[in-house]
């Protein structure tokens, strides 16, 4: 237990440290994108972007900006030596065929059984947009979620059953949050690390059947 909850940047550093060297990795839009800033070059992690590239480099700046070279969030990026381009069908075949080692996604909710909800609030006025989230959820060998553990109103986002529309069923391997890292195992969620909150306090606030420290 550390002295306080982690910032999203500290959490990104933690995720980056847990990615095995040499992995092929897809980072989702939003907070997961920050993981790239903490990957050490000597780890040899290769980033995949679903719009058709392996070997994606950092965000482009100034003269480097090329409208033909963007990431999945449509932000201009750079290419690293050894990069490869391919079309969309190949990019998703790569993903859905189980060739990606890890993907890191944001979430609205994750269930104790590893169900993921991250694409749609289900609100009547909300225009749904799914992108590649459902493909990543079922395709990557390990699906890491990076999210705040509680909503702004204090409600847990790790829940016994997701109330938001699902992205994938039983697909999440591990949840990285500001207060704890939680592994989703066949026996239930297991708290592996905590930050600024004791296991007992976490268990009380999450009130999840089967949760163990």
């Amino acid at each position: 237990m550390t002295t306080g909850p982690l910032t999203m940047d500290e959490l990104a550093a933690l995720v980056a440290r847990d990615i095995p060297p040499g992995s092929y990795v897809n980072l989702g839009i939003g907070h997961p994108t920050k993981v790239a800033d903490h990957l050490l070059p000597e780890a040899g992690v290769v980033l995949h972007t679903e719009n058709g590239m392996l070997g994606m480099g950092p965000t482009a700046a100034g003269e480097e900006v090329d409208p033909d070279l963007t990431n999945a969030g449509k932000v201009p990026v750079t290419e690293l030596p050894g990069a490869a381009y391919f079309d969309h069908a190949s990019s998703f075949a790569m993903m859905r065929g189980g060739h990606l080692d890890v993907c890191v996604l944001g979430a609205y909710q994750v269930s104790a059984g590893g169900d993921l909800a991250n694409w749609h609030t289900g609100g009547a006025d909300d225009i749904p947009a799914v992108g590649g989230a459902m493909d990543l959820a079922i395709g990557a060998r390990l699906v890491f979620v990076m999210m705040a553990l509680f909503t702004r109103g204090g409600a847990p986002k790790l829940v016994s059953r997701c109330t938001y529309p699902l992205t994938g069923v039983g697909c999440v391997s591990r949840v990285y949050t500001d207060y704890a890292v939680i592994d989703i195992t066949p026996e239930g969620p297991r708290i592996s690390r905590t930050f600024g909150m004791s296991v007992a306090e976490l268990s009380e606030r999450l009130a999840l059947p089967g949760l163990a420290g």
Partner: protein
Amino acid sequence: MSRTQFPSSALDAVAGTPDGATVLVGGFGLAGMPFELLDALIEQGARDLTIVSNNAGNGDVGLAALLAAGRVRKVICSFPRQVDSYIFDELYRAGKIELELVPQGNLAERMRAAGAGIGGFYCPTAVGTPLAEGKETRVIDGRTYLLEYPIHGDVALISAWRADEVGNLVYRKTARNFGPVMATAARTVIAQVAEVVPVGSLDPEAVVTPGIYVDRVVRVDARSFLAQGAR
């Protein structure tokens, strides 16, 4: 004599696009979007179109301009809602446009299936989600799959970097995205390119879309959409 035609203008390239057509539109956001062909399609006037594209337009250019012109009945895409998709958002909320939301991998694979003569395929994407509703499921080796059908286009509008005089295409960086798969999936495939080079100038090992798929190629001046304030 190549079967691929090289019309002299984008307007000639899109000639004959009928009302009610299903039009596959390349690009991921603005990268690889066939701006000139879309502008030409607005001028050509086809209406009641079904558009298949990853997004539903950005800013007020390209696909967004076609939507704004009221030519589109339905959009089949994976990610309509973006920071600059205000034209689609307004049409959708006003009930003036239909949306079929398709996971991005299914969007690509369904067009790949169309181009490869595949009548359908089973895929695990979206199992157990609202997007699985109404789809046939099958368990194969213990895993659940959904039956997905091909998406055929009447016309494909794509943007490539270079063509040679027999219609072979190469692309540039992530602007390749949906171009190669859309080129296989439509009856009439129309490509805009920045350059047309003589036969023999493209390395055959590097050709991405062979000319057999490409019906019409039009050269357009490379334009910087960054300078046009599209972002």
